[in-house]
């Protein structure tokens, strides 16, 4: 007769029928349903913890040393040229100079302080340049770059989207502000070949930038931004553009300009004839030319090595400290006398 009551129970009625049903069914036994799965219950014994820290420090310190060595092995020549490449009289108004007409050729000499094995990468480094700015980073059209079919997909590219109703290819602020300083390197008056092929990611060339997409209306707007592109060369071959379009996440960044495929000897002087075209002066951005070899860890960067040494060192100190604490003031784990309800009535 318990079922007949279901109507009466009102809101609880729904619970009733299922209660009756559930009650009649015995739960099935399994380790999971009984929450009795075999479990490993580690506890933090001093031995365990101290050895963990020791092991970590034993691994981290050598790794740090290795990383540091790798970084030290890298030979790097950095030359900041933004101010130097402006003639002294024009330095009061750099922006006017860089925006003015005329040849802005500048000659720089770089000393090779250590033998550099090929390949030697040539980078340009910009500082205080926000390629990651929200307005900038979104101002591109990936589909337009990939295929002519999507030539008109320019909605994201504002304000560099079209010229007189005609879409710009490649559109957007990123492409528009393409870096346009150029470098010509020579050693002992013999020009040094800088290979500008293969500086972009292969995947970008093959899949992101179409080989049938040609620049159109580029830099034809009211203001000219950076470099111009040869409209006869498809985007997939415009490697400078492809490199530039891989936006940097940090305001200080290096982009690959080319590769030198011969060794440089110690004491060599590299003469650079550069065309200083790109305006970083209006926002006090630095421009640097970098020649660098690489290691298995990449370019010259001491950070990882130092960080590893620091962490390893801290772990070692912690291990030491814990050992001393353990020896000086040993505590029995799980001592029942620590349970306050056994010890004092305060309970706190």
């Amino acid at each position, binding site marked *: 007769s318990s079922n007949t009551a279901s109507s009466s129970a009102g809101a609880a009625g729904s619970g009733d029928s299922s209660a009756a049903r559930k009650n009649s069914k015995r739960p099935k036994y399994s380790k999971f349903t009984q929450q009795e799965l075999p479990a490993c219950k580690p*506890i933090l014994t001093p031995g365990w913890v101290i050895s963990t820290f020791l092991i970590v420090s034993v691994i981290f310190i050598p790794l740090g040393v290795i990383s540091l060595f790798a970084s030290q092995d890298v030979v790097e020549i950095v030359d900041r040229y933004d101010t130097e490449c402006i003639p002294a009289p024009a330095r009061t108004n750099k922006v006017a100079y860089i925006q003015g007409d005329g040849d802005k050729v500048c000659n720089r000499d770089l000393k090779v302080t250590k033998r550099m094995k090929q390949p030697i990468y040539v980078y340009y480094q910009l500082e205080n340049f926000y390629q990651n700015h929200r307005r900038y980073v979104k101002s591109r059209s990936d589909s337009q770059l990939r295929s002519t079919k999507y030539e008109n997909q320019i909605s994201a590219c504002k304000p560099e989207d079209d010229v007189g109703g005609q879409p710009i290819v490649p559109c957007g602020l990123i492409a528009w502000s393409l870096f346009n300083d150029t470098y010509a390197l020579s050693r002992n008056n013999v020009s040094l070949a800088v290979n500008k092929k293969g500086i972009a990611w292969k995947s970008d060339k093959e899949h992101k930038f179409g080989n049938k997409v040609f620049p159109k209306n580029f830099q034809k707007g009211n203001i000219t931004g950076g470099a111009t592109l040869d409209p006869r060369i498809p985007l997939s071959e415009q490697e400078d553009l492809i490199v530039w379009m891989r936006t940097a996440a940090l305001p200080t960044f290096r982009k690959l300009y080319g590769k030198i495929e011969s060794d440089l000897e110690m004491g060599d002087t590299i003469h650079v004839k550069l065309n200083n075209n790109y305006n970083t002066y209006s926002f006090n951005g630095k421009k640097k030319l970098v020649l660098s070899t690489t290691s298995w860890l990449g370019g010259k960067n001491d950070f990882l090595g130092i960080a590893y040494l620091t962490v390893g060192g801290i772990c070692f100190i912690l291990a030491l400290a814990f050992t001393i604490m353990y020896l000086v003031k040993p505590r029995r784990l799980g001592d029942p006398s620590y349970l306050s309800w056994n010890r004092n009535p305060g309970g706190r």
Partner: protein
Amino acid sequence: MKRFVYINDDEASKELCCDNRISNRKYTLWNFLPKNLWEQFSRFMNQYFLLIACLQLWSLITPVNPASTWGPLIFIFAVSASKEAWDDYHRYLSDKKANEKEVWIVKQGIKKHIQAQDIQVGNIVWLRENDEVPCDLVLLGTSDPQGVCYVETAALDGETDLKTRVIPSACVGIDLELLHKMKGVIECPVPDKDIRRFDANMRLFPPFIDNDVCSLTIKNTLLQSCYLRNTEWACGVSVYTGNQTKLGMSRGIAEPKLTAMDAMIDKLTGAIFVFQIVVVLVLGIAGNVWKDTEARKQWYVQYPEEAPWYELLVIPLRFELLCSIMIPISIKVSLDLVKGLYAKFIEWDVEMIDQETGTASYAANTAISEDLGQVEYILTDKTGTLTDNKMIFRRCCIGGIFYGNENGDALKDAQLLNAITSGSTDVIRFLTVMAICNTVLPVQSKAGDIVYKAQSQDEDALVIAASKLHMVFVGKNANLLEIRFNGSVIRYEVLEILEFTSDRKRMSVVVKDCQNGKIILLSKGADEAILPYARAGQQTRTIGDAVEHYSQLGLRTLCLAWRELEENEYLEWSVKFKEASSLLVDREWRIAEVCQRLEHDLYILGVTAIEDRLQDGVPETIETLRKAGINFWMLTGDKQNTAIQIALSCNFISPEPKGQLLMIDGKTEEDVSRSLERVLLTMRITASEPKDVAFVIDGWALEIALKHHRKDFVELAILSRTAICCRVTPSQKAQLVEILKSCDYRTLAIGDGGNDVRMIQQADIGVGISGREGLQAARAADYSIGRFRFLKRLILVHGRYSYNRTAFLSQYSFYKSLLICFIQIFFSFISGVSGTSLFNSVSLMAYNVFYTSVPVLVSVIDKDLSEASVMQHPQILFYCQAGRLLNPSTFAGWFGRSLFHAIIVFVITIHAYAYEKSEMEELGMVALSGCIWLQAFVVAQETNSFTVLQHLSIWGNLVGFYAINFLFSAIPSSGMYTIMFRLCSQPSYWITMFLIVGAGMGPIFALKYFRYTYRPSKINILQQAERMGGPILTLGNIETQPRTIEKDLSPISITQPKNRSPVYEPLLSDSPNATRRSFGPGTPFEFFQSQSRLSSSSGYTRNCKDN
């Protein structure tokens, strides 16, 4: 407003439209979607997420693809909508079942079988015994010649005793045949929900009776959901139907219960929301400033000179969107999911199956398991909850001779059996009283056995015992009783029944022995109601001793008495009695007075002792839970002495000198007030003493106390760890729950009967025992269990684990959301405060939905301590009760951890991936994988027990992360094409990951170890003890204290044979000793020697309230 119901007149009743269709449904097929959406959007969290999702549609400000919010949002809505739909479907099914039940009605003079839903107002409905009343009826006729019928109203008001209902005076004497053709009109109020009131008039149309208006009261009604009992048939005219019945009007959708933990999570969410607003404002202003000072110089960004009016809002809104992930959208879904699993664990638990009946536990409310771990007060019913509700006659004392003392069972006492066979007068009279001084109805079952139908379990026990002692009550035919004794049949004619009332505390019958015509008065009742009326000269001392002795054993006693009446005396009295019975004013009082005139000069036969056996494991359960810092209140309808005895025998209160019992009583407001003040004073003084102080109050005093001295009573409630409330009504039980709740305590109410339903619904957690008194309590409850002792497991194991797990899960959810949000914030400082997202849309969405939610879900099977050690050290529940694992300070810890980890990930990433490597997609993925690695280790570190599932989900999730990203990296059109392949082939990527893990986890690991070893929490100590093996057992030994009350009843009588009044006497004497004790010099020692649970627990509770 009045309603006119025309009996048996279909035409006239048509306008009253509604049929008897019951509907508990919340939705219909048509309004489901809009109504459900409306309900969901009335919740703040959902409004928030909807706002965020809408903002994301504005491409100017959205950092990511809108799908990253819309997807999860729609998923969450779909999940809760389908849950609602499922529940509503079940309500529909149960309504349908009730609506389609077949009933007999009379239509146009013909009896018809129809479905319950087709009953119209004005129909005459016929009911048979044990039928459920389908709608509200006015009684017209019953099988009883007096027009009486019995109903059980438990489903309506929770009272389990049978109630008498009578037909209206106008209907008396109407022939069965004529009932079919009856016509008339009932003038009744419009439907309301007052189940105690029905003020209506009825007028029958000719030819039945003259035009007199007959007034109707609630006594003349049969209300929906009651059951017809002990009456062959009854019929009535329906006045309210369907959802307009008294029950239908009073039922509401039960309010969803919110756990303390949910409230805390909501509070923390609010805090995070405020934090988010602050961050957004600061960054928004900074962004606008940077834009105007710096960004205008950055020619390549081409900020226009002329900006639209909303330009100022753009950057703050972008940050709002970036920071919106601070509040994890997944937390609600994860919590619902794990809560469902907690409930399943309760249902699956084989250790909570009642072996006797095979009933498993059932969790009707899946949302409140955490609250079980935070219970501070348990309010328990007595009969059927603590006890088995199986009354068994155990001992008796007849004429000063004790039977059953040796073997504990008088039925097997050879001495008694001998006395019966030898025909001792006293013994035979004693048995006669046992057999017939009652209102029991013997029913011959089909098999030929005699089944007794009794309103009270005690009478049932007595009659059964008598029959086992060869005095078999065979049959009752109108007023003729038949008893078989040793083969001979004895007949008695019942002349009068002097009913039991709680004031008189006794009942008597006057019978005429049909053999010799003697008129005899048989009485039974409480000792204080019988002994004073003993015949002059009879020594009642031994009887008093016997009562004392039995009640110390926790047995329920009744005194039986006998007197032969002279015929004249009876006749004379009978006239007065009839007179009193027909009085309209003061009837009850007058009857009592008249009865008194007959019930004197009694010859006391002896005392019966009935055992209401405690359920298995009740004392242990109560002791364990009290150790766990849970306060117990016993709320019972039973009388004070029995309640106290039961309380003693199940460790509820301690006997002197460890415990003290304070009485609050009094019949007038003044008395109660004085008594209350005195108790309060004593409580305040003894608050610091290691004493178990409890107060006892009865329903009457409680009524007064609640009405006039609510404030004092609340203070008392806070001070007192234990209370016994006897003779309380269901609504008083609910009121007490209300009071404790208003003091911000978590309450759990447990009961088994219909009279506990209101308290169960009122409490934070209602637990029903699916026991003998039916399933009403279990049905209304959030959890139903088979036995009281399962409560221990329910709270200590399931409640505690649920609390711990949810505490981790919820804080972790915030941790991981904050982690990624902090990184975005840091990144904004190096991206010109312009609101660029470092992570791509896919990663952001998958981070919340997959990468971080899977490993943490497995924490639902994590166990910090084994069940055995929790059971051995129930004190550990303090941590849950006081909310030590989830409160603003633990949350601050997690907040700090996420800030620290965000700094680690961000700093390491931007330095390791500087210069030529600083490509946006790569850097984003490095930072993201750093977060994933860290969170895997964080989960691993916070996991206490690693099962296969834990390993699988934590490390499998890492593998899954790479698998998903490889997949995306293989799609040319996705933004992260080839990124992950590139990264994974770089040694520097892996070296960076290890560095992040080492730097991120090292300090946290060290801190944890330091705390674990040098500042261990009690949980840590137990973990260590448990896992080192060994000492746990000695721990247990330290705990055990000499148990003063044993489960078995007999030892008590040995240990305290001399102490006549073991518990409640000494204290409430106004003797200064009682109060001065605490200032005595001995007190401090006592204080330190024994554990003062009182002060410690109150310390705890206060702490948690301060938090």
